[in-house]
């Protein structure tokens, strides 16, 4: 009985931290785009927004750690540590978990290059940072396929809210790129 409720607790924490992770990651993406486009109101501190973007990204990493650790430790399902980073290595719900692993790989690349960006140089850092635009949809797909909680109304609300916010940000980013294709005038 206690093993079962322990497993339930782990599963519960895994789902909760997954949702928190999605929210934090989504907010980080929105703030990142806003920083790039300079679209925040002029009175708002650019510095604060930039630091918030960074902080939320780091929070995401913490939530991710909790989410992954509790999911793997849960004795009720067999996922295995390898499936954390190797997509489609999980015997349990291979595709859904695989998407999660893919998101971890992409996000991990973004994280590591951001931590080393002064050594990497701007260009190298920027190219990898664009993977965030890929990591988010993959993570979202994972949350929709691997999570069972969409029938709970507020979970669905959070998921829809995140999707809406990030989609808006990505469209804004695309429009900005389309309108100003050259970064530098002299070509």
């Amino acid at each position, binding site marked *: 009985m206690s093993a079962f409720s322990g497993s339930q607790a782990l599963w519960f924490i895994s789902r909760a931290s997954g949702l928190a992770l999605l929210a934090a990651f989504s907010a980080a993406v929105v703030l990142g785009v806003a*920083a*790039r486009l*300079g679209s925040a109101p002029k009175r708002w*501190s*650019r*510095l604060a927004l*930039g*630091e918030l973007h960074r902080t939320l990204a780091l929070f995401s990493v913490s939530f991710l750690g909790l989410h992954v650790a509790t999911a793997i430790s849960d004795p009720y399902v067999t996922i295995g540590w390898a499936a954390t980073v190797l997509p489609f290595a999980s015997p349990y719900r291979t595709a859904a978990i695989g998407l999660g692993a893919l998101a971890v790989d992409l996000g991990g690349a973004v994280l590591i290059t951001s931590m080393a*960006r*002064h050594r990497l*140089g*701007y260009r190298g*850092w920027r190219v990898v940072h664009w993977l965030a635009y890929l990591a988010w949809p993959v993570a979202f797909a994972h949350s929709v396929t691997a999570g069972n909680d969409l029938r709970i109304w507020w979970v669905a609300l959070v998921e829809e809210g995140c999707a809406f916010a990030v989609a808006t940000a990505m469209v804004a980013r695309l429009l900005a790129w389309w309108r100003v294709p050259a970064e530098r005038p002299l070509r």
Partner: protein
Amino acid sequence: MTAGPGPAAVRLRVNLIACDGRGLCAEALPELITLDDWGFPITSDRAVPSRLLADARETVRACPKLALWLECG
């Protein structure tokens, strides 16, 4: 070079080609950085005082275009 202060003078420098005029640096270090009329940072040639060195390093880290650096000597 951003290792410890030491006796040599450390100056805050900006690469204006990389700079986009986002203005985070002037917020982070108003004692040493002001913005010109177009939003781009004006840095001083004077050495960074040791009490501001930690803030200067944070400011260098915070620049989204990696346009700031600390120069020794």
